[in-house]
């Protein structure tokens, strides 16, 4: 089940990050990674898909790279949509490219848990989130996911902004 992180940490990440490399991005329209990519693109993030099987092709109009080492910078966050045991290798590659890309965050998708990866990335000075979906977190913190009856665990006495786009994270 999802590990818990303070809302303030998640909100700070989603507010500050502009470019996300999605490792394991899929062209299959029903994969969770496709959902997340489509949603985050729609929210204005720049997404760079990484998937060796799709290298050179496009997913949702974005050019796919084979590996993180091939991705041109800057990249603020690596989002890992791979099996948990593959997350360590991806994390090592992220650490190796950290300075070139200007990387700040390693995020492992819902269902992806790798404590060794978490330790190494943490030791390299990266912020680590595991077992969470950035799409769900964005929807939760922007208020939009409340339309699905999801418990956002917040109380708000102010009007949400940018309602037509389904809430926004621009305000604290």
């Amino acid at each position, binding site marked *: 089940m999802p590990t818990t992180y303070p*809302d303030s940490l998640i909100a700070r990440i989603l507010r500050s990050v502009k470019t996300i490399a999605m490792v394991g991005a899929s062209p299959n329209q029903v994969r969770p990674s496709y959902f997340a990519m489509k949603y985050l693109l729609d929210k204005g993030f720049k997404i760079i898909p990484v998937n060796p099987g799709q290298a050179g092709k496009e997913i949702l109009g974005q050019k796919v790279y084979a590996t993180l080492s091939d991705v041109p910078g800057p990249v603020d966050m690596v989002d890992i949509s791979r099996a948990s045991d593959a997350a360590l290798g991806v994390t090592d590659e992220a650490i190796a490219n950290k300075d070139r890309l200007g990387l700040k965050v390693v995020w492992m998708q819902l269902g992806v848990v790798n404590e060794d990866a978490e330790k190494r990335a943490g030791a390299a000075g990266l912020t680590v989130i595991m077992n969470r979906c950035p799409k769900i977190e964005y929807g939760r913190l922007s208020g939009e996911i*409340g339309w699905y*009856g999801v*418990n956002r665990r917040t*109380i708000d006495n102010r*009007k949400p902004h940018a309602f037509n786009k389904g809430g926004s994270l621009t305000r604290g």
Partner: protein
Amino acid sequence: MAEFGFDTLAVHAGAQPDPATGARITPIYQTTAYVFEDADQAASLFNLQVFGNIYTRLMNPTTAVLEERIAALEGGTAGLAAASGHAAQHLIFHTIMEPGAEFVSARQLYGGSVNQFNQSFKKYNWHVKWADATDPESFKREITDNTRALFCESLANPGGVITDLEPLARIAEDAGVPLIVDNTLATPYLIRPFEWGAHLVVHSATKFLGGHGNSLGGLITEAGTFDWAKSGKFKTMTEENPSYHGLKFFETFGDFAFCVAARALALRDLGPTMAPMNAFLILTGIETLPLRMRRHCDNALAVARWLEAHERVAWVNYAGLEKHPLYPQHQKYCPKGAGAVFTFGLKGGFEAGVKLVNNVRIFSHLANIGDTRSLIIHPASTTHRQLSDEARVKAGAGPEVVRLSIGIEDVNDIIADLDQAMRA
């Protein structure tokens, strides 16, 4: 992440000033459908790839506030509303069961649920096995490879039972099936089943949540703790869904996947949607839930104590009374009160029961519970009439039994009304 108190959540959770107008109270979004931004967004919405409103059979902004509020009050990850408590039960089992599958239920249930499980569910080839709410081991004995869930009421209607949820949740966990708790009579003010290990909670919001006897409604909420993939038995949750191009609900939505699946499949296809107007009324009711429940429980205890000493009363089945066998369970699970619904037996039997309901002047004689008004019914001649004599006694509804749902009126008036009606 701030932790708010229950009474604060009862007023605020899920609600926010209206994005369009700034209205402080959640507006009644009386609309059937919602415009799309463009064709691409429409496609994304239908594929569940983005969050948003499509059509009120599936979701509505007023109802969504209520869904989030019940999730917050129960400590769940998400909520889902339905047209009635029974509709909510239907949606839950439709999401969990397959033809030929079984579930084990406490037999001490609201009579309507007994009918739903025994009769209507049988038409889907879903089979209920009955167990004893006061004996968790009796559930274990009925579990087979085909079992998909355990079901009970936290406080049972009308048997005066407080279910021992903790061992029951452990039995469910060991069997790899969810424990579903009907928390209607307790409300999350008295008992939060997730804190004892339950996986799904269902409510008839018609009762104490709405609280004013004006709206039918049902609510579902999930703890987010059940692993739907482990056993391979919950195909709706784990297998590729053909009506969503092969989407897998549990994999995609994680700890709130049950409510998404129940909405996107069962509610979409079976259609028992809560009306936005009802969601509004139930939301307004919930704002005072803690105040009302305190008063309901105080009044109920006073009435039970008075009845216990009454010469025409044979017994009082209220776990809030010290000598009740389930008093320790009351202290463990709901120390704030044993609820407002209980039964008592009249020495004069069936005839005395009929006389009492005919002579009360404040109590309303009707088939409901959980109203601000005090309510009375004689189950043997009404709600439990369809059951056999034996099943009636087993359900705690023998001929001499009278059920009360104590309201929030002046307790002296409630007592005086019962007294004059018993002596009439």
